[in-house]
């Protein structure tokens, strides 16, 4: 059956309709991106009196700086851990809630709450709980024989920001997984059950593949969240420390540019960050999407 095609004779109207969206993209994305590209090739004093063109000096300096290379790997660890942790926990919770029939509304509401909290507030919350001096968590951990001090121990600090970043994102992932699960046709599951497939088998062979568009979408969203949106959280909990242990790329852009007033290096870093994200998204759409069944 062929859908009816509507033909609009007006040649200009479609472009006119696109103009607002294009204007927004140009002003708020393309133009700043070009500005960043331009200043990444320059060295400038903070007030902008003297600007010199330095070619790739800012980039060259970045990649011989062990701190920057360290920040790259820290970002990878951070983004990967947050994505895996928040998506797997969200899926488990979603499956659990999907089975409870009568009260799932209540559970859903409760589980979605954390998402409404601003990243900075999340940061302060976790900073407070895990503060080596006044926090409840190090106190309990110490009682259990674990010496927690994310002020000095880089691994502790990384664990803290991963947990904090995941905690907030679980809600978001959970919502999408619940919606995805509820659109899985009951008849398929019932048929499989009649054929003798256990709950685990039913989940892996029917539910999970049907969830793949949701999972794929969340994968991209979560990677982007971990790389960009966690800035406020890092600022409130560890400020990239100790000794740069949690200095992920987006936070380094901020500290070098806004605190250190080194605009050239900061721009070069944002360009690198932009390239990474474009590459990641391209890879995901090119290779991962092929395995997705819509």
């Amino acid at each position, binding site marked *: 059956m062929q859908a009816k095609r509507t033909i609009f004779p007006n040649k200009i109207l479609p472009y006119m309709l696109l103009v607002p969206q294009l204007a927004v993209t140009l002003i708020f994305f393309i133009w700043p991106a070009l500005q960043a590209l331009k200043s990444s090739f320059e*060295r400038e*004093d903070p*007030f902008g009196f*003297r600007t010199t063109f330095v070619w790739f000096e800012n980039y060259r300096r970045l990649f011989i700086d062990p701190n920057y290379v360290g920040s790259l790997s820290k970002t990878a660890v951070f983004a990967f851990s947050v994505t895996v942790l928040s998506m797997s926990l969200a899926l488990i919770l979603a499956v659990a809630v999907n089975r409870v029939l009568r009260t799932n509304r209540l559970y859903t509401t409760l589980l979605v709450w954390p998402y409404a909290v601003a990243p900075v507030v999340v940061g302060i919350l976790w900073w407070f709980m895990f503060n080596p001096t006044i926090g409840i968590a190090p106190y309990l951990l110490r009682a259990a024989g674990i010496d927690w001090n994310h002020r000095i121990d880089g691994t502790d600090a990384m664990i803290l920001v991963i947990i904090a970043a995941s905690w907030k994102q679980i809600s978001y992932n959970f919502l999408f997984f619940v919606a995805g699960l509820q659109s899985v046709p009951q008849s398929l599951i019932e048929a499989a059950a009649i054929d003798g497939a256990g709950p685990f088998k039913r989940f892996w062979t029917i539910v999970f593949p049907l969830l793949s568009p949701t999972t794929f979408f969340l994968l991209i969203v979560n990677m982007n969240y971990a790389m960009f949106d966690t800035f406020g959280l890092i600022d409130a909990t560890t400020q990239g*420390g*100790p*000794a740069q242990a949690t200095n992920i790329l987006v936070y380094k852009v901020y500290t070098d540019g*806004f*605190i250190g*007033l080194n605009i050239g290096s900061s721009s070069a870093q944002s360009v690198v960050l932009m390239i990474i994200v474009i590459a990641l998204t391209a890879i995901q759409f090119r290779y991962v999407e092929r395995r997705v069944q819509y």
Partner: protein
Amino acid sequence: MKKLALLLSTGVIAALAHAPNVAAQTEIAWWHAMDAELGKKLEEIANGFNESQSEFKIVPSYKGTYPETLTAAIAAFRANEQPAIVQVFEVGTGTMMAAKGAVYPVYQLMEDNGEPWDPSGFLAPVVGYYSDTDGNILSMPFNSSTPIMYYNKDVFEKAGLDRETPPKTWAELEAMSRQIMESGAAPCGFTSGWITWVQTENLSAIHDQPYGTLENGFGGLGTEFTFNGPVQVKHWDNLKKWADEGLFEYGGPVGGGDAPPKFYAQECAIYMNSSASRAGVINNSKEFEVGFAPLPYYDDVTTDPKNSIIGGATLWALNGKDPEVYKGVAQFFTYLSQPEVQASWHQFTGYLPITNAAYELGQEQNYYADNPGSDIAIKQITRGTPTANSKGVRFGNLTQARTVVDEEFEAMLAGTKTAQEALDAAVERGNQILRDFEAANQ
């Protein structure tokens, strides 16, 4: 209905007719970084000036932390929306001094507007820090501080120590901390805010050790850091050793946000931080008595500790406004330097009195006699004759360099580097930052 509209519009016209009288007041924007109690006190000062005359109106606005305020002002300057006055912390001084086209030097501002201006009336270390190589003051001193030591007298007594005798030297501080810990009077000996400023920059000044070449950066842009000398290494080594033993607890990078609660909660008996923390310390220490003392020194390095160095902020006038505005700025600065205004700010906050007259007024008012310890900071920063090493540290991009020092200190605490390695690395990375600054400002 029509009548009502008519009445309303007459009202509007009448209001508009009165408006010119209000608009005749020239508004002067003042961006600052003082929040909470300090911010309220600052607004009080602005109101005091506004009420003292009718020509100008100072409009203070809070712009966040010191680095945030500086960044906001620079961004505003680039967009030609800058305030007439901005408060910049001492770390930003090098940056501001290099930005010649952006800054209206205060000595010139006062001269151009015929306001009285006598640099010799200011405390010597304050004048020295904010002057150019020809001795002209470039920014208006406002809130200057220096680090001192606070201690918990009750814990001292519980540990069997004399509650009126704080440690003078680091050796005494170590012994007393150990006694405090071992007696169970408190779980930790001491903590400190600002590792960079208190335990590195001030440590160097007090022991007359160079922090960098060219008179700690006062002499020009081609300077290099040299704070990896034996005294600094020895001190960092000790801090690491004491941290491992639990005598010293680290309070975090930059200002050291975890340090004050450790002191307030009576976990650490001794706490080193800015004299401007005084109001906060007293307010938060209602359950025990606080003592005040100068920073300790190593008596095997020097028997004659030098003056400590300055922190806090000054007010910079930014270029690009009407002459009328600068007339108001100059008058406001004159108002600010009045002994009454200064003394009240200093006594309320714990910042230094920036003029000799304000200090003398405090003495006349018996303020220091009534509040023991409140003059420790002034005495410490004015003791002896300042040397090239104790004048202060003034480097471009010092904010970034301080971040590096913090990071290397943390690496040392985590045990990945020795004190010598950490300080060497900080100097090397810091020099790179200085070269960047030099290249950008030539």
